[in-house]
Each structure stands twice: as structure tokens, then as C-alpha cells.
């Protein structure tokens, strides 16, 4: 179901893309049941938000409007207990992933299992729409040894210990359960745009092989950050509103990717490395605007913990109530469009942001990407 009518072809493409990103970024090692349950919990949370949050709102309105007898719905307030519980659970983040690999050899074994799994899924024809993606994973993937990448990985870990001190629980967890990197022969960037993959609920991150030193660093830092955010609770976006009521919006993958790439670019530049390109261009520009509006430190904290309370409150104050919520319900292209409009309406000058090195680079990356796609006939 969609919120707005769109061209059916575009619709299908967007839907397929979303599913691809979903599959690629979703837990692979954990049992199917857990994955299913995650989907159920997300749906239940949404239902809960509607029945309670929106239900209360409509009830109050109708009481006012029609002057009817008050309150058969007052008992609903009690229901917030459940949501509060969920919220508090998420606040803790993940102490460590349920599956922990000790070394590269163990992680490489895990890669093998992933290839096998995709092969099986393809045979079962579970996701016909994903045939192209699955074939990338199942055809010729192998783990290769690459000392240079491992060296960069170490360097990145040291870097993050300094750059993420703002959220001590993340740096502590990174030290006690560090991510293990493997280099794979498959081309992640054809499907996930980032050249790598963070296997959720494990400490195993992967990148696709490349010879360019700069791009190795880019991919490794990006995937390291996904893992760091996973430990901090950054995959589960949530906030408390002005009435201190909790809200949860997990699974906004594009937003998470945008923040990941933004943080990647920030940290790389701070350490005098300028990545050759920018991934998830639209999402990253959107995240950059959010960062400019919400503050650098608060945005980094929000990225690493998933707690958007402060950022949301600042942004909604500047751009109007409900703005951040609205953005999260959209896809990146629409979100960026609306965000730009709102910034302009609020009379905030964004010309400096648009001239920033990051946004300029993003535009170049985008042009190059569409040219490459055209040439190779992909999608």
C-alpha cells in the first residue's frame, strides 16, 4: 500500500529496490523465526501506535466536536505500558550480538553459509523478484585474504575508539566484541550501494574486493559504523514526544544508510582521507541537512543510539511540528524534496550547505552513478 499515487512503473521499481535493500540489510545468520518475529514486532508496534496514539487523538477530537459522553477510551492510556516497555528495551541497545565470531576463519565460514543459504533460497524460488540479487550472492562468491584491508580495518577500529567517545557504551562494546572483517569476491555495490554488508546480529562485516586503497577504507569504515550503531541501538529509531510519550519507528533503512554514509564521510575527512565517492547520495544529503539542523553532536548520538528525541525536537521546532516523523515515513527522494521545501519556507538559508564539499561531491557521485548504470544497463 502506498501513500501517494505514483507512476506504476516507478512504483514497481521503488518497491523492488526497497525489497532488495531490505533483504541485503537484513539478518542472515539468525534463525528464520527471529527474522519473522522482528517483522511481527514492527507491525505490532505500528498497530499499537495507531490504536493508542491516534485513537486517543481522534477520541479527544470527537468528544470536543460532538459534545458527546466522554471517555470510553480512557482505558487505552494503560496500553502505553506495553509501548513503554518496548521502548525501554530498545534503549539498552545490544550489549553484543547473539552470534559472535572469534576470528577471520570463523567469519569466512559464516560467509560460506550465507552463500549456501542464498543458493537454497534461490532454488526454493522464495523471492522471484530478487533473482538478480540472489545470483550475485550464490554464483561465485568466495572469501579472499587481503592483508591491506585487514590493516585498514585495524586502523579504522583505532579511529572509532576516538571518534565515537561521545557514546561510551558503543566504544566499550566495540572493544569487548570487535567486528571481524572478511573480503568477498562478490559485488555488493550492485545491490546495496555501499560495497559491503553488515551482517546484523553478528559481529561479521564484509566488503567486496577492490584494488583502490581509498575505496577499501571507505567501505571498511562504512561497515564498521553500521556495526557500531547496531551495538548502540541505532537500528531502532525512537523518540519521546513533548508529552513524554514513546514512539518507535524501526526499519527506516534509507535513513540509517544516510546517517552511516554521512558519518563515514565526516570521520574520513577529519582524518584527512577524502573518499572518492559518496554512497546513498539522496539519503546522505538528507542526513546532512538533518545534521545541520539538529546539531552535529546530537545527530551523531542519535545515529549511534537510535534515540531521536533531541534531534526531532530541534528540527520540529525549526521546521514545524511533525516534520521529522513525516520524513521517516517517506522514501529518500521525497523526503529530501519536502525537507528542502520546509527549510526554505522556514527562511533558513541552505546555500552554504549546498555548496559544501559533501553535497557537491554527492551530486558528482550521483551523476557518475547514473552514467555507469546507463552504460552497464543495470536496472
Amino acid at each position, binding site marked *: 500500500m502506498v501513500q501517494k499515487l505514483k507512476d506504476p512503473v516507478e512504483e514497481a521499481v521503488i518497491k523492488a529496490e526497497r525489497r532488495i535493500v531490505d533483504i541485503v540489510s537484513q539478518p542472515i545468520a539468525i534463525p528464520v523465526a527471529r527474522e519473522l*518475529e522482528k517483522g511481527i514486532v514492527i507491525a*505490532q508496534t505500528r498497530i499499537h501506535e495507531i490504536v*493508542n496514539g491516534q485513537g486517543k487523538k481522534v477520541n479527544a477530537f470527537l468528544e470536543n466536536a460532538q459534545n458527546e459522553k466522554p471517555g470510553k477510551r480512557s482505558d487505552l492510556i494503560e496500553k502505553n505500558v506495553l509501548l513503554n516497555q518496548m521502548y525501554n528495551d530498545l534503549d539498552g541497545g545490544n550489549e553484543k550480538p547473539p552470534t559472535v565470531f572469534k576470528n577471520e576463519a570463523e567469519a569466512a565460514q559464516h560467509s560460506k553459509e550465507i552463500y549456501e543459504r542464498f543458493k537454497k533460497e534461490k532454488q526454493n524460488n522464495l523471492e522471484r523478484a530478487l533473482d538478480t540479487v540472489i545470483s550475485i550472492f550464490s554464483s561465485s562468491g568466495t572469501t579472499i585474504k587481503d592483508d591491506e584491508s585487514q590493516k585498514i580495518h585495524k586502523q579504522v577500529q583505532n579511529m572509532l575508539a576516538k571518534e565515537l567517545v561521545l557514546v561510551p557504551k558503543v566504544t566499550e562494546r566495540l572493544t569487548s566484541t570487535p567486528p571481524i572483517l572478511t573480503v568477498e569476491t562478490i559485488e555488493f555495490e550492485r545491490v546495496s550501494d555501499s560495497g559491503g554488508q553488515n551482517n546484523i546480529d553478528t559481529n561479521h562485516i564484509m566488503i567486496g574486493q577492490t584494488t583502490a586503497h581509498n575505496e577499501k577504507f571507505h567501505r571498511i569504515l562504512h561497515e564498521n559504523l553500521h556495526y557500531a550503531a547496531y551495538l548502540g541501538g541505532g537500528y531502532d529509531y525512537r523518540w519521546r514526544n513533548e508529552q513524554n510519550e514513546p514512539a518507535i519507528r524501526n526499519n527506516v533503512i534509507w535513513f540509517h544508510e544516510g546517517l552511516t554514509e554521512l558519518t563515514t564521510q565526516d570521520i574520513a575527512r577529519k582524518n584527512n582521507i577524502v573518499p572518492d565517492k559518496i554512497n546513498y547520495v539522496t539519503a546522505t544529503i538528507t542526513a546532512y541537512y538533518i545534521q545541520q539542523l539538529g546539531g552535529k553532536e546530537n545527530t551523531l548520538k542519535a545515529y549511534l543510539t537510535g534515540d531521536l528525541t533531541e534531534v526531532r525536537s530541534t528540527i520540529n521546532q525549526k521546521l514545524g511540528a511533525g516534520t521529522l516523523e513525516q520524513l521517516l515515513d517517506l522514501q529518500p527522494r521525497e523526503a529530501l524534496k519536502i525537507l528542502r521545501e520546509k527549510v526554505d519556507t522556514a527562511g533558513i538559508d541552505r546555500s552554504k550547505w549546498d555548496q559544501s564539499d559533501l553535497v557537491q561531491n554527492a551530486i558528482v557521485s550521483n551523476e557518475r552513478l547514473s552514467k555507469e548504470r546507463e552504460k552497464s544497463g543495470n536496472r
Partner: protein
Amino acid sequence: MVSEKLETEATRLENETRQKISSAISAIESALEKWEATKKKPKMLEERINELKFSYKLFIEWETESLKGSKDFDSVITRLNEFENLCEKINERNN
């Protein structure tokens, strides 16, 4: 006579409700899709899936009505009342 402000407010509230329902529908659909795609369906999750299906049906019905129905004030209010009932139905099942 209905005040203009009340009328706008009712429409706004209906639109907002519809947007939220629409995004809940997507979340439910994605959960149901995963469920359908799974060969061995864990028994322990079946009950929760059925609950999702229950809400799903109500949401779709309401959404369709909200999209296609008349936009005059009385109809909007009727649909908001139906939304209230819908919430109650879902809540009753959860008790």
C-alpha cells in the same frame, strides 16, 4: 452549522489517520510477506500472525472507505467514529 475551523481540523485529522494506517499496512504486509515466504512456519508465531491479519483487514477496509468516500463533514466524522470503533475492536482482542 459547523465552524470552518472544525471542518478543516476534521479533514486534517482524517488525512493524518490515513497516513498512519497506510504505513502500518506496509509494516503488516512486510511481516505477512515474510511469513508467506517461509516454508516451515513456526507454530508459536501463528497466533500473532492471525492478529496481524485481523488488524490488517480492518485497516484496509477503513483506508478504502477513507480514500473513496465522500469528503463532506458528516462523512468525515462518521469515518472518524468508525476509526474509533476499529481501535476498540483491536483493543478488545488484545485483552
